[in-house]
């Protein structure tokens, strides 16, 4: 995501950062490049103009030109302005850490009513499913209500999603479904029925005592008065606490028109940007906050039910500027691995008792966090080098297959693996004998290394990085690989971590 926008941005600004002194004309020139990059990224024309104007005024007004490192100063200005454009800086607590803001305000007593709206094909129904999974994970009970009676099989789609979330997604909350498929009709013949369904859904939600009622609505064009009127009537009838506009992240200049129209009809509370995992350059993301004035709450980043992320302006700004997003990476890791699991693993590593099963579990955890490319893309200074790299996530699957072809005993003790056993494993997993040997060799190495490094598991190292704010990360950009070098360098501090741990105990 955001690949080529960040590439262009970096290019334009790197020119400045390399120079000891910069002149007004240098700054103007790179801002012209930035402007074109923004327009190519589908940022609305006027928003792009205003952005460049603001940055230019600040850059020329402040002491940027005289600053010791004018390039860094420019980056800071651009970063700050990008953050403003994307939704503003998060509030910080006394220690300078961002204060967690819940994207959804829950009301007491429930149900909290959330209504989705948007153009056809923007991804409302899928987002409903993902939001239900998000809420379930947070222990909320949810009812998904199908108020799209127009698109063929939309009701069935939501019902299937509701069942899927209820059965497969993590978390304690229960997911209910409400739908009246018999009320569906051909296009234009069921206008207004949605109001009735929404009312009954609310009753059902109260009866079932759910925490959150999610209303899916039919996709409609903002220029269709009849259907916009229907949506307004649904809104008046159930009085949702939150109304979200779902926007395709790849939308062009017209995003402004539809967002404005939906906002004026419904008074939106937030925006969900879908298909953010595409190669969108994020124009809609950069435009919509400015236009609607309401925050982007979530971004959809994949086809799976858990592929929904809370939106953080400063992190996305960092990604655009090629500064990576280590904070999100750490959060992803923390979501998958509990503190106890991490500690248990650490202990095993210290004693050199790592088994193939542990290794397998690690692989599965990484796989769950997302594609390798998306994970690596969050590291500072790496994003842009990945664009042509074809990382094969299947490699992990193949490795999994090899481990799964081992017997329980073999997984506990790799020394058992003689040639005959290796042949069997390679046959069983459909891989080359050399792959099996390579895996065993790699495992032995990891095992040995982990014993040496014991006490400073990856988790604690990554966690220590999480404490850094965006400004600290900003220092890590620039020369490619610089960021990585830092990560590597941190192994030198190992003893420190070890000591800390011991003291605690």
């Amino acid at each position, binding site marked *: 995501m955001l690949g080529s926008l960040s590439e262009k941005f970096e290019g334009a600004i790197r020119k400045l950062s390399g120079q000891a002194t910069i002149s007004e004309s240098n700054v103007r020139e790179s801002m012209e490049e930035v402007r074109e990059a923004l327009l190519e990224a*589908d940022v*609305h024309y006027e928003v792009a103009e205003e952005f460049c104007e603001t940055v230019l005024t600040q850059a020329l007004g402040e002491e940027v030109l005289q600053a010791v490192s004018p390039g860094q100063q420019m980056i800071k200005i651009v970063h700050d302005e990008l953050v403003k454009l994307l939704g503003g800086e998060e509030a910080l607590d006394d220690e300078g850490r961002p204060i967690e803001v819940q994207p959804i305000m829950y009301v007491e007593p429930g149900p909290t009513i959330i209504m989705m709206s948007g153009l056809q094909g923007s991804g409302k129904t899928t987002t409903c499913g993902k939001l239900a999974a998000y809420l379930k994970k947070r222990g909320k009970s949810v009812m998904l209500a199908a108020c799209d009676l127009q698109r*063929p*099989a939309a009701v069935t789609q939501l019902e299937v999603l509701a069942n*899927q979330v209820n059965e497969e997604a993590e978390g304690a909350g229960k997911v209910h479904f409400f739908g009246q498929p018999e009320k569906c009709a051909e296009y234009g013949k069921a206008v207004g029925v949605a109001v009735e369904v929404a009312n009954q859904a609310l009753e059902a939600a109260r009866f079932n005592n759910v925490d959150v009622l999610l209303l899916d609505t039919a996709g409609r064009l903002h*220029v269709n008065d009849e259907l916009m009127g229907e949506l307004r009537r649904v809104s008046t009838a159930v009085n949702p606490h939150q109304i979200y506009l779902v926007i395709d992240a*790849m939308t062009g200049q017209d995003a402004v*028109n*539809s967002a404005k129209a939906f906002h004026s009809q419904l008074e939106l509370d937030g925006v969900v940007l879908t298909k953010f995992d595409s*190669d969108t350059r994020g124009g809609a993301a950069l435009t919509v906050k400015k236009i609607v004035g309401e925050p982007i709450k979530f971004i959809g980043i994949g086809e799976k039910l858990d592929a929904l992320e809370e939106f953080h302006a400063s992190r996305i700004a960092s990604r655009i500027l090629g500064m990576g997003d280590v904070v999100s990476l750490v959060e992803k890791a923390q979501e998958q691995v509990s503190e106890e699991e991490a500690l248990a693993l650490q202990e095993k590593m210290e004693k050199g008792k790592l088994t193939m099963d542990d290794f397998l579990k690690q692989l599965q955890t990484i796989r769950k966090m997302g594609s390798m490319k998306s994970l690596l893309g969050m590291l500072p200074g790496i994003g842009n080098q990945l664009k042509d790299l074809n990382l094969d996530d299947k490699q992990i699957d193949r490795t999994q297959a090899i481990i799964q072809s081992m017997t329980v005993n073999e997984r506990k003790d790799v020394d058992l693996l003689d040639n005959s056993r290796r042949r069997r494993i390679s046959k069983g997993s459909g891989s080359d004998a050399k792959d099996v040997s390579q895996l065993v060799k790699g495992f032995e190495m990891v095992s040995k290394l982990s014993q040496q490094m014991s006490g400073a598991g990856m988790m604690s190292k990554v966690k220590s990085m999480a404490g850094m704010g965006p400004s600290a990360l900003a220092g890590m950009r620039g020369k490619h690989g610089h960021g990585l070098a830092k990560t590597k360098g941190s192994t030198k501090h190992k003893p420190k971590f070890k000591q800390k741990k011991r003291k605690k105990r």
Partner: protein
Amino acid sequence: MGLFKSVFTKIKDGLSKTREAGPTAQLRNILVGKALSAELIRDIEKLLIQADVGIKTAIELRKDIQAGWERSEINTGTEAWEFLKSQLIAYFPDEDREIHFAETGPTVILVAGINGAGKTTSIAKITKSLRDEGKTVLLAACDTFRAAAVEQLEIWSDRLGVEVVKGKQGGDPAAVAFDAADAAVARGVDCLVIDTAGRLHTQEHLMRQLTKIKNVVGKKIPNAPHETILVIDATTGQNGINQAKIFTQASDVSGIFLSKLDGSARGGIVIAIREELNLPVKFIGVGETPDDVQPFDPPSFVEAMFAE
């Protein structure tokens, strides 16, 4: 083209909603009957960008007008406007915009696009026009991934009175395509229209899957698919170029179905796509019923882009 009754008013109806104050509508207003100025020429670029034609094309057109103005070839706003129109129409030279039918046996039309582009609705439209022409149509429900996608296509097939071949939810879409091709030959239908799952062009494995679907039908029916239609949402921004590029690499796209042109978006992205990839637009979608489809006609498309 025979496939459609030429209903020029229909496209205007469809587009009439967009005439509020879209950027290109303003373009006509600021140009016609006005004196040309440097400032006005800059505004042309701005409004073209807002119609999603892409910054490159917008700058080029602006420079052409600028040059024409300096050489005193373009002197008034009206002339600039006429010039713009002719230039945009020239992006779509007279060429083959028809559906290619197989000489013998079933004609296979593969329909692809990103999630939510409007594939299934577009298929309903294509199917209805084929059926209205007296052709027999079979549908293949190869979106085995998204919840209720098969049901969605089935509802359309019921409404349109055509049959549909489907597979198991979560099954291999290429297998469904193969069965459908088999059935198309056995039943002797004129056309087989294949619905595929929406996929982001950045998902390599899904693009490979699309290639596989294409190859599988080609094995069963010679030269199939005879058409590979990429559905692009008219609201799409410059990302549409990447979509077209990568889908073409994976499945030899032969034409574009520009959907949802009944909103306020002008679909200028097809001009950027044309510039980069030389892909013809074959149909435009202007509403939610199966009748809301039109063959692509450059002059009326450009006219509608600028319509008030």
